[in-house]
């Protein structure tokens, strides 16, 4: 018993001791202030005594305080979003402690400034200044889902309607190049007939990201004097789906398969365009003796690799055929009958891979071949061929057959290494092999070029607020037998919470065009130096930017006539372009309404081709503006897009050969009237928002030039210069209606409903 009591006592004592220990632990107060490395208070920083529950959150003055019963050596941790975590070893005795923290701002993607000079990034990339995504491209009023039409509503691009291509900041259409997954696209547009612009070959829905650079673009790209359109193709489709489309103009069908693990996909599409029915309803000015017809097929496969990389292949094949007859400018009775047959095959294979340790690799390759068979015939009123002798060679030259083959094979490798704090280096090289065969008047011109480029670029983040991008590109072209070195520099500085100032400088080189190299190989690179200064302010739903630029053109190609029949070329051309551009997009101020406004002022002159002196080129307007308004009316499940474009008149010239001494003179010149265009698109989506719909339908309709303005793009002159003919669109308006269907099942919604 005693024994037991003793033990009881002992146990009780022991328990009492334990409890006292527990209760008697003195609480010690720990407090202090949290500041950043510049001495600014940090609010809502979390202070934790490591491996205990004890800690606090800093208040609105950056101060914290808490009590703890812990004793001895401990680690006190301060952490806050956007800052590097800091630890301090402290010794807790019985006295209150004051521990202050100085924490350093972390350079992070969301906060850090980005270089915005020159480029309009679009798409879903977090870092990009999202301006246009694929839905935006598809719904630009009157744009008919053409990437180029949508880009024309951004500042820097001209409203040129008589030729395809983007005419950017005083640059000609061929000075803008398109790149898909890193490699150049040789024939981004359907082959066209003179004075009528054609569409781009690629649907906006193929791409998840689009960057329109109006100048100062990265050293990773080259051979574009003015501008680069950088397109990044989508990875895997969202689901397995079949689709079909029908319109008076075309019919198409396709299928996309995505495997269950969502790691691989393939797809195939076919489309047929025939405008005969449409042209019989909507009268066209030219006489189409062969109705435009196109067959287009494409196929793709894509799969994820083990390490989170991606392999993508895309191919598209198309044929086109058309014949068009228009009055001849030199005669009141004759007609020019122009016909075109085109075959195009484009292939792109790319591989993106994480190599570990911060290294990334991007391999791209592409092969394209494009064949055009063009012919023109002078015809009389009965459509009989007409021929002329040497005394009327300018007439006889209008009878021609031209066969053209353009092959381009490319391979490109880019390696990217992250160095921490967002700093990165990027380098790589590319090789292009191009073959161009042109047969005209039974003479074959064959051009083969082997082009190599090496490039390197570094992203340097000095702080979250100041960043620089330094790059250089080294190029060699075998056909020119010359090398060049193109430096590119850009800087960005953050102003306030949402604003930034950027500047960019770069030298850009481009090979002369094939039709110039056909006559002489004794040419060098054409060159443009870009200087850009930009301010941008971006808040949720709103973007404002203003950009000023100066461009200097050097070594532009000039045609040098040897006699009436023969010309050669040299690099003695020059020029400049300067201007200021504004952009404002607002999705926030008005509910369900999204609009943007662009304005470009351009002052440019160039002495190139057959210009006798520096002249404002015939594709450049001084003032260009666009207003795009879009609204989706939920109750009607209908979207409406309006686009109004305006440009002041463009100059036109009659440049005449005037003998060997004074080659060309300006026989006549003038300025076209102002250009106005209001385009409207309406689309109806009956299943909008219904994820269970097995069939999704979009009904789409659009009209260009609703107000019926008579556009004049320029003038063609007769040989004697006495008569000029306005270049106008083939019809006043272009109407489009179509129905698009897709069948696919969203399995996630099914699963939820099965649980009910």
């Amino acid at each position, binding site marked *: 018993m005693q024994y*037991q009591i003793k*033990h*009881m006592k002992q*146990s*009780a004592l*022991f*328990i009492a001791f*334990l409890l006292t220990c*527990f209760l008697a632990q003195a609480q010690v107060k720990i407090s202090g202030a949290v500041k950043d490395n510049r001495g600014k208070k940090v609010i*809502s920083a*979390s202070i*934790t005594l*490591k*491996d*205990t*529950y*004890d*800690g*606090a*959150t800093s*208040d*609105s003055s950056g101060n914290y305080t808490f009590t703890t019963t812990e004793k001895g050596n401990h680690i006190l941790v301060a952490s806050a*979003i956007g800052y590097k975590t800091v630890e301090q070893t402290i010794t807790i005795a019985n006295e209150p402690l004051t521990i202050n923290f100085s924490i350093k701002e972390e350079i992070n993607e*969301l906060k850090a400034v980005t270089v915005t000079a020159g480029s309009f990034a679009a798409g*879903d990339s977090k870092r990009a200044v999202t301006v246009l*995504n694929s*839905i935006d491209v598809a719904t630009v009023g009157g744009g008919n889902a053409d990437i180029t039409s949508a880009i024309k509503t951004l500042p820097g691009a001209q409203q040129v309607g008589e030729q395809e291509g983007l005419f950017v900041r005083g640059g000609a259409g061929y000075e803008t190049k398109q790149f898909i997954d890193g490699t150049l696209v040789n024939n981004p547009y359907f082959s066209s007939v003179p004075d009528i612009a054609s569409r781009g070959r690629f649907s906006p829905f193929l791409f998840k990201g689009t960057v329109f650079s109006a100048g100062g673009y990265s050293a990773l790209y080259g051979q574009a004097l003015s501008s680069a359109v950088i397109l990044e193709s989508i990875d895997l489709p*969202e689901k397995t789906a079949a689709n079909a489309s029908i319109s008076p103009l075309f019919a198409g069908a396709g299928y996309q398969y995505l495997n269950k693990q969502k790691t691989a996909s393939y797809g195939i599409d076919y489309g047929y365009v025939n405008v005969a029915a449409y042209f019989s309803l909507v009268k066209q000015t030219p006489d189409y003796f062969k109705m435009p017809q196109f067959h287009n097929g494409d196929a793709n496969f894509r799969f994820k690799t083990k390490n989170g990389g991606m392999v993508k292949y895309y191919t598209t094949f198309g044929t086109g055929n058309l014949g068009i007859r228009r009055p001849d400018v030199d005669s009141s009775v004759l007609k020019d009958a122009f016909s075109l047959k085109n075959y195009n095959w484009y292939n792109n294979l790319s591989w993106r891979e994480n190599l570990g340790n911060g290294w990334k690799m991007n391999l791209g390759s592409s092969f394209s071949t494009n064949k055009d068979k063009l012919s023109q015939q002078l015809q009389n009123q009965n459509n009989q061929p007409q021929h002329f002798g040497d005394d009327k060679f300018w007439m006889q030259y209008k009878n021609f057959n031209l066969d053209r083959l353009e092959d381009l094979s490319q391979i490109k490798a880019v390696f990217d290494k992250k160095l921490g704090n967002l700093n990165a280096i990027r380098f790589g090289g590319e090789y292009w092999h191009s073959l161009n065969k042109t047969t005209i008047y039974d003479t074959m011109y064959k051009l083969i070029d082997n082009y190599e480029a090496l490039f390197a670029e570094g992203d340097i983040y000095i702080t979250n607020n100041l960043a620089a991008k330094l790059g250089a590109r080294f190029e060699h072209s075998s056909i020119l037998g010359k090398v060049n070195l193109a430096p590119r520099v850009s800087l960005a500085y953050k102003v306030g919470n949402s604003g930034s100032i950027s500047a960019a400088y770069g030298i850009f080189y481009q090979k002369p065009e094939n039709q110039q190299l056909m006559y002489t190989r004794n040419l060098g690179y054409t060159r443009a130096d870009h200087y850009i200064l930009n301010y941008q302010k971006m808040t*949720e*739903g709103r973007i404002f930017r203003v950009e000023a630029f100066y461009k200097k053109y050097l070594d532009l190609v000039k045609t040098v006539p040897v006699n009436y029949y023969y010309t050669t070329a040299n690099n003695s051309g020059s020029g400049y372009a300067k201007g200021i551009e504004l952009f404002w997009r607002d*999705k926030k101020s008005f509910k*369900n309404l999204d609009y943007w406004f662009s304005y470009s002022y351009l002052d440019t002159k160039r002495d190139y081709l057959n210009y006798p002196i520096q002249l404002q080129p015939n594709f450049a307007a001084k003032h260009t503006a666009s207003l795009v308004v879009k609204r*989706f009316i*939920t*109750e009607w*499940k209908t979207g409406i897009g309006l686009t109004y474009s305006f440009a002041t008149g463009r100059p036109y010239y009659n440049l005449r050969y005037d003998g060997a001494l004074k080659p060309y003179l300006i026989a006549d010149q003038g300025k076209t009237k102002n250009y106005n265009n209001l385009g409207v698109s309406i689309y109806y989506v009956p299943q*909008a*928002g*219904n*994820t*269970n719909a097995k069939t999704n339908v979009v009904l789409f309709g659009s009209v260009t030039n609703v107000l019926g303005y008579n556009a004049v793009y320029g003038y063609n002159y007769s040989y004697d210069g006495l008569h000029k003919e306005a270049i106008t669109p083939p019809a006043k308006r272009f109407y489009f209606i179509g129905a698009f269907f897709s069948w696919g099942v*969203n399995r*996630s*919604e099914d*699963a*939820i409903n099965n*649980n*009910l």
Partner: protein
Amino acid sequence: MKPLILSIVMLVSITAFSQSDKYTQAMQKDLAMLDAAKTAADLNAAAAAFERVGDAEKTQWLPYYWAALAKVRVGWIDKSVDKDKLAAEVKALCAKGEAINDNAEFASIRNMAATQQMLVNPQERWQTYGQEAAAALQKGMQLDANNPRLYYLQGMSVFNTPEQFGGGKEKAKPIFQKAVDLYKVEEKKPLYPTWGADLADSMLAKCQ
């Protein structure tokens, strides 16, 4: 001998009790703090307190759950907060908890975080974040087909979707009804989430 055994038992249970008691007390204190929270700063402080408990315990998922819930609530009351940044924090807390115990409660929080991201611009973000929110619910229901909070959240999503887009009162009603039924039979465990019953009741009333 008995008292000795008794005292040993007492001793053991006291030490054990003091261990779990410390956790329970801290959690109860923090839950009280979360209950009293009125401002975004209060909610952030509660989230940090829960996270500290989670980091110290290392094997408990509930502190991370409550930390994530406190954080996601910031998104409902603070209109100006960057929803993408907030969602990244919420999802990071979920990931910490899911590494310990992946369950339906985290799915409900992921649903809310993605929904908040979608609401920034429903027309543009519906495709991405709307699907992410739906996928979170789907995963949650696979883990626990009888979690009432998942049905409450699904009901809210349907309720707030315009009728012409397949939502509305009529469609939401059976879902809220199911949530209410499930709340009635839900086993209530201390420190575990039980919220939502009153919310589901009032939403069901709105659907009548």
